[in-house]
């Protein structure tokens, strides 16, 4: 049974303490939440809350003019262990938060919350904040999506990438018409400027490698429809699933590693098919001209501006505006990691993560989900291994396989213990080790079940013995049956 413990500190600034506190500050309290995944699996979460009032330093920091400055000033005063949260309750009339905003979530692991009258109301608000900043029931269910009965999973839950020890990110520029367009993109600079900061932050979660390629004569699998009104070409939403397949054959597999690949494709349409726009389900053009494919990556269509003079000589030189492209790709990357900022209630204000691309609490959000997913993966892997062993009685388990299994079990147990102690980072590391060990054991070549001679074939070989031997036995059985029948009919015939 997995228990997720979130250590939280709730700090009341003067004038924000609700009237109906059960005890004088400081005191501790535990809130529970039960997340049920399926009939047999459920995860409980504990929010260990410590209520206290502000210290002098914190009061000084909260006196800043804006929430952003206050957040920056408060950061050195907080507990910065992963998974922990610090929430500052500011008076209802505080000018720190803009009008109409009740919660401000900072760049790190803290939030400012506007006070409400009663403790119950405050706790309800705190619950919302903690769900945004750590995990929600749906993010945990998405992490355990393998165990959820098929129909009950929301499409969003299937979008998130599976937890893995590493990911390969490939940016591909597709130029189907090199005769008309010479496309240049400064991918190296763009990766350094936009992608690297995010990946540096995410390096705690997994290893990332980034590369890029340019593919020529790579066309989409769908011919776009010509729209006379706008004199442009349109790709409708329902045809998008067919777009990827022919392109994917050209992308090249990641032969050198086993990590999942995230593909981001920039498609410069052929001259005869431009401009090209993507339509959503309602027929309206998509503003970003991009779409993503769950657990696979994203595609963006980049239209080349038609030159003013029609006599402009071909090929046309195109320099890709990387800021525009990377904005879309980074948003898709966040989406694929389940870090979308769209599902936040309107009265929440989220600080933009700035250059780092990712706030500390978003990282925690990812770690919670991945830790739970890793634990589930390990238990599935070990269960299948056990089932295999049950099925083939004479399979040989080598010592190294056995030790990997033991190590996986020990690591997964330690991960569960650390989760229940609120040590998120240690739990994540342990769960990663457990995944590595369990996969190593499961994919050991000596466990290939085809290596073992199945019993039905042994039986087939001995059919030439069994069949002729069975014939007289069956015949005599039939004879016995016949005789007993006769015997019953004519009992008088016997002496």
């Amino acid at each position, binding site marked *: 049974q997995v228990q997720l413990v979130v250590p939280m500190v709730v700090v009341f600034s003067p004038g924000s303490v609700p009237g109906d506190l059960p005890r004088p500050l400081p005191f501790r309290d535990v809130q529970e939440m039960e997340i049920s995944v399926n009939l047999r699996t459920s995860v409980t979460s504990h929010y260990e809350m410590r209520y206290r009032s502000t210290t002098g330093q914190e009061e000084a920091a909260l006196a800043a003019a804006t929430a952003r400055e206050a957040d920056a000033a408060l950061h050195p005063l907080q507990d910065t262990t992963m998974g922990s949260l610090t929430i500052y309750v500011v008076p209802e009339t505080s000018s720190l938060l803009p009008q109409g905003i009740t919660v401000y979530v900072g760049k790190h692991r803290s939030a400012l919350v506007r006070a409400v009258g009663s403790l119950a109301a405050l706790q309800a608000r705190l619950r919302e904040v903690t769900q945004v900043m750590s995990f929600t029931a749906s993010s945990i269910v998405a992490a355990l999506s393998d165990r959820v009965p098929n129909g009950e999973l929301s499409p969003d839950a299937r979008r998130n990438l599976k937890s893995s020890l590493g990911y390969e990110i490939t940016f591909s520029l597709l130029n189907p018409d090199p005769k008309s367009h010479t496309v240049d993109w400064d991918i190296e600079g763009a990766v350094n400027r936009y992608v690297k900061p995010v990946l540096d932050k995410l390096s705690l979660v997994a290893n990332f490698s980034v590369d890029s390629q340019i593919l020529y004569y790579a066309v989409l699998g769908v011919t776009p429809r010509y729209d006379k009104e706008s004199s442009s070409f349109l790709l409708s939403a329902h045809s998008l699933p067919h777009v990827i397949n022919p392109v994917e054959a050209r992308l090249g597999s990641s*032969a050198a590693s086993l990590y999942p690949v995230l593909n981001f494709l920039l498609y410069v349409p052929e001259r005869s098919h431009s401009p090209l726009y993507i339509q959503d389900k309602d027929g309206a053009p998509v503003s970003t001209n991009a779409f993503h494919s769950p657990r696979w990556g994203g595609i963006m269509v980049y239209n080349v501006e038609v030159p003013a003079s029609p006599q402009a000589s071909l090929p046309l030189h195109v320099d890709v505006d990387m800021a525009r492209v990377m904005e879309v790709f980074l948003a898709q990357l966040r989406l694929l990691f389940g870090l979308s900022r769209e599902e936040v209630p309107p009265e929440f204000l989220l600080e933009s993560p700035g250059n780092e691309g990712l706030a500390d609490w978003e990282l925690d959000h990812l770690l919670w989900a991945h830790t739970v997913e890793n634990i589930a993966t390990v238990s599935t892997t070990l269960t299948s291994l056990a089932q295999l062993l049950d099925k083939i009685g004479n399979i040989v388990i080598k010592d190294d396989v056995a030790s990997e299994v033991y190590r996986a079990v020990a690591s997964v147990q330690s991960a569960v213990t650390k989760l229940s102690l609120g040590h998120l980072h240690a739990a994540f590391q342990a769960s990663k080790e457990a995944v590595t060990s369990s996969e190593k054991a499961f994919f050991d070549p000596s466990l290939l079940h085809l290596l073992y001679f199945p019993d039905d074939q042994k039986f087939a070989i001995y059919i030439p013995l069994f069949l*002729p031997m069975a014939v007289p036995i069956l015949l005599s059985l039939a004879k016995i049956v016949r005789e007993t029948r006769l015997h019953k009919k004519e009992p008088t015939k016997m002496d």
Partner: protein
Amino acid sequence: GGMAAALLPLPLLLLLAAGPGPGRADAGQERRDALREELTPLPTGDVAATFQFRTRWDADLQRGAVSHYRLFPKALGRLVAALGVRELHLALTQGFWRTRYWGQPPLQAPAGAELWVWFQPTVTDVDKAWKELSNILSGIFCASLNFIDLTNTVIPTASFKPLGLANGTDHHLLRYAVLPREVVCTENLTPWKKLLPCGSKAGLAVLLKAERLFHSSYHSQAVHIRPICRDASCLAMSWELRQTLTVVFDFFSSGQGKKDWSLFKMFSRTLTDTCPLASQSKVYVDISPKNKEKELLEVSPAPTSVYEAVVQGDKKTYAVYDLLNPSLFNTSRSLNVQLKWKRPQDSSEMPIPTLHAQRYVGGYGLQTGEICTLIYNTHPYRAFPVILLETVPWYLRLYVHTLTIITKGKENKPSYIHYQPAQDRRRPHLLEMLIQLPANSVTKITIQFERALLKWTEYPPDPNHGFYVGSSVLSALVPSVTAMKDMDVEQSPLFTSLFPSSDGSSYFVRLYTEPLLVNLPTPDFSMPYNVICLTCTVVAVCYGSFYNLLTRTFHVEEPSRGGLAKRLANVIRKFRGVPPL
């Protein structure tokens, strides 16, 4: 890209090439790519065509965590960077190049799959990297390269030197393996074509149609990756990927005895445009005059230029078609190079190449045998040394004391011998020798072997087909009859620039002999099952009768109504109205 074509009097040679052109500066990196194709019609009526595509990447693959690819294929680039590959040469071949009749090949490869790789000195576990590399390549090219393991890998000491830039030649960084059983077909060609920047959509590669290419006497496709000098001063390094494809068509039998050919007849396609990414794209047709009878041949349309060079010791003239020259496509929308013979050609022989070789298995019975190699030096007055590399699987146990080398009736002592005996199920025999070939001579090398018995699980499917022994490799610097000029490697056509020539008086040749097919004593694999069936049946029959004997109950039979005769008699009596018996 550029393309050039040349015609020989009898052998015609057509080369399509895209050589390096002016590079485009791009983010501080200059990248160039080049393609070339070569077609050689042979005296027997065969036409050989060689395609060469070269992609040059002016970047250091081994450094930098983030890799950005433009023309160089990412799959191979990642491989080279991740596994510390210094040089990679992979060839997949169907058929055998008949050097004796077809002349010196531009690039020969042994039948089946051949892979040889130099690793960087930084690679600590070369065997592991080699295993990993062959597995990945087998995935990329859909070939069974994953069957390369210690039992068919050797470390040659002298035969395979790096073709690109190399600091040292510590041969422990080299691995060489041949899989003679490998069958090459469309599934290997498609991934090979996918590595080209333009794929098979534009440029010379549109001619590569699988149904024509595999309807041929010889098909060989290869990938060569090596580091080269970026410019003449050689201060910086570039990576070169060369994709070559050689195919030999038999036109004499399919073309009603005529030796005329055209691109359309060969590939059932014509050239319509160039790959817009190529900096050079040329077709070369071999139109070298033989016996001063130049007028015998006619190429159409008129070539854009004529190129003369000494290639492998022969003076050759090539008609060159530069596809990047816009005038070529002005008159007609497509280019269909044609070659016609003005009068019917009688069997004028192709000159016998200076160096050629033959190999066969001798002996009888299933216990011992003999491998014989014949090496011919037809040079009228020059002797030259040749390095012979033999790789023999462990299940043929070589007796080294039976090794004899005989030239002109006398024993010929090799000046260098490297022999590594096989270990059962661990590694093959490796025999390398440096042999001096006197002028105008035949050298016969024989070595005896004994056939080993395999375990029953070690036999491949269809073991009665026999076991292949890979081609032996001959490497030599052959003295040239005609003096060669030094050429700028970047400017000369691609087909002259893979092997470095040491000086003007000799040229490098690498030849492969025929692969051998040896029968091993093969058990009857159905025997165990037959034995089981037979014994089981016998046991079952015995059991059945014994069981019958034990379980049958015996009754005393009452006398019956009589035999058949009596009943018949009664029937007759009934008819007659007489009472029955």
